[in-house]
């Protein structure tokens, strides 16, 4: 019998405990080895404090022997997160806010006599616009004098990618897909502009840090000798310096091709309002609880789905600038049900990690009740040459119902795409489109958008 078959694919490194699924519910087994820290976590008031400040997911203790009873101290059931996302899907500010939250949590922990024993970006999830820590077992007793054991991980998961995004190129966040324990510091050193050395925080935490890592990589450092070598004041200084270094990192979304998208699209104001009304009227009767808006840009149409009570909306776009603007809007509105993410549909987030089973592909995190694919099809079928029937099959794997906008060749946007290439798309017509999609969907509604040549369709998967 495989004792590990209910355990989640990513939850194996920490001997303190692990997450497992039972009867469709998620639980966390707290192991006996973690007993002292778990009890201290509660008795010190740290748990209460973090939950009250909405920085940590709450949990309830449940009656259970656990998944592996001989190791088990307690079983807890954590508060659920609407949608799991990963740091390589986040915009600049999402990663920055996750980093600042981690440091704020460490400050609170120190006040309570505890310290974070890891600082992985995967321990942070988003509840709408709000980042929150999901790893309840991240805390250990703080021993005065000991250095921060999570410092290396923090610099690789948070600081290095943020500096690369801010000072070299926003697209470098994708390196996090390749380096699942954060970006190696010596790689960041090679890529970053020389001027970064002039910043004390970056010099210390990236350059000198990378240097020390390489110098001492094969040396055994007696850990016990390190106690008493870093005072609480120094620890405080370290955290504060990391915080101010990160706060000073900025990125402006202006200047990418999609940032001013809605100013240059094919829609007159009238036609735009018409389309909004049509989409809204299509969504509401369906009363979906989860909507994925693909190619959402800044989330204008995503927000229509928020009218449905309790509905969660994923607002995904390929452009980090659009996602950044969407996220900033979410923060201004204190949005709890909308999650903007960076996603390239022609190369979406795959399953990665050990056994390709630690982080889920985007498809594994579905299906959604409803998928929106507005002003999208021509980018897939024409720009990327994906046959319509394959687009249909993929979209049917992502959601149970689909609202999709067909953009015909006569549309000026498609004309632009075809301007410098051969028209090899004989089936790219409304009839060809419906025929391809009928392989996987039943057509429920067909509505031309007046003022344009585009057509909205409502499909339900077979």
């Amino acid at each position, binding site marked *: 019998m495989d004792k590990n078959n209910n355990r989640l694919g990513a939850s194996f*490194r920490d001997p303190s405990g692990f997450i497992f699924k039972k009867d469709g519910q998620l639980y966390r087994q707290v192991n006996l*080895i973690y007993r002292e820290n778990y009890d201290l976590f509660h008795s010190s008031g740290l748990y209460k404090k973090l939950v009250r400040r909405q920085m940590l997911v709450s949990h309830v203790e449940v009656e259970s022997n656990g998944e592996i009873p001989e190791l088990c101290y307690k079983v807890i059931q954590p508060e659920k997160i609407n949608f799991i996302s990963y740091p390589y899907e986040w915009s600049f500010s999402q990663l920055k806010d996750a980093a600042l939250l981690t440091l704020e949590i460490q400050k609170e922990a120190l006040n309570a006599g505890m310290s974070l*024993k890891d600082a992985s970006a995967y321990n942070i999830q988003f509840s709408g616009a709000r980042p929150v820590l999901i790893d309840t077992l991240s805390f250990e007793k703080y021993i005065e004098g000991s250095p921060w*054991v999570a*410092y*290396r*991980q923090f610099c690789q998961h948070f600081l290095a990618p943020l500096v690369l995004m801010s000072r070299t190129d926003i697209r470098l966040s994708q390196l996090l897909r390749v380096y699942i324990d954060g970006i190696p510091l010596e790689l960041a050193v090679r890529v970053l502009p020389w001027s970064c050395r002039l910043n004390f925080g970056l010099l210390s935490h990236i350059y000198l840090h990378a240097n020390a*890592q390489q110098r001492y990589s094969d040396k055994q450092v007696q850990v016990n000798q390190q106690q008493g070598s870093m005072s609480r004041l120094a620890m405080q*200084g370290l955290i504060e310096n990391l915080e101010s270094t990160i706060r000073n990192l900025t990125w402006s979304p202006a200047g990418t091709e999609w940032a001013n998208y809605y100013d240059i699209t094919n829609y007159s104001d009238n036609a735009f309002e018409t389309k909004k009304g049509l989409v809204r009227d299509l969504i509401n009767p369906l009363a979906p609880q989860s909507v994925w808006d693909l190619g959402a840009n800044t989330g204008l149409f995503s927000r229509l789905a928020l009218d449905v009570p309790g509905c969660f909306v994923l607002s995904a776009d390929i452009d980090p600038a659009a996602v950044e603007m969407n996220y900033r809007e979410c923060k201004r509105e204190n949005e709890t049900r909308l999650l903007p993410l960076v996603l390239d549909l022609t190369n979406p987030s795959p399953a990665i990690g050990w056994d390709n089973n630690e982080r889920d592909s985007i498809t594994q995190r579905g299906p959604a009740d409803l998928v929106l694919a507005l002003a999208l099809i021509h980018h897939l079928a024409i720009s990327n040459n994906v046959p319509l029937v394959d687009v249909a099959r993929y979209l049917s794997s992502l959601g149970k119902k689909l609202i999709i906008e067909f953009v015909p060749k006569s549309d000026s946007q498609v004309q632009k795409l075809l301007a410098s290439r051969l028209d090899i798309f004989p089936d790219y017509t409304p009839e060809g489109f419906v025929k391809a999609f009928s392989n996987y969907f039943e057509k429920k509604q067909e509505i031309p958008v007046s003022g344009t040549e585009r057509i909205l369709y409502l499909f339900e998967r077979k």
Partner: protein
Amino acid sequence: MIHSFFVGKQLLYLDPGSGSFIIQMLLAGILGAGVAVRIYWKKIKKLFVKETDQKPVDETPAEDENGQK
């Protein structure tokens, strides 16, 4: 295989990196001094502020055991 070692009574599963410990110790002096200066600067300022106006300087409100300020 889970790599674990003990710092005092702690059970750590994460490799903190020897270099990462060294660099923290090197920076410790500077960073600690920075915080100390900031704290003492506030105290020095307090002395001067008291002389020019009679209002006592507000300290960060302490929190009671329920975390209420």
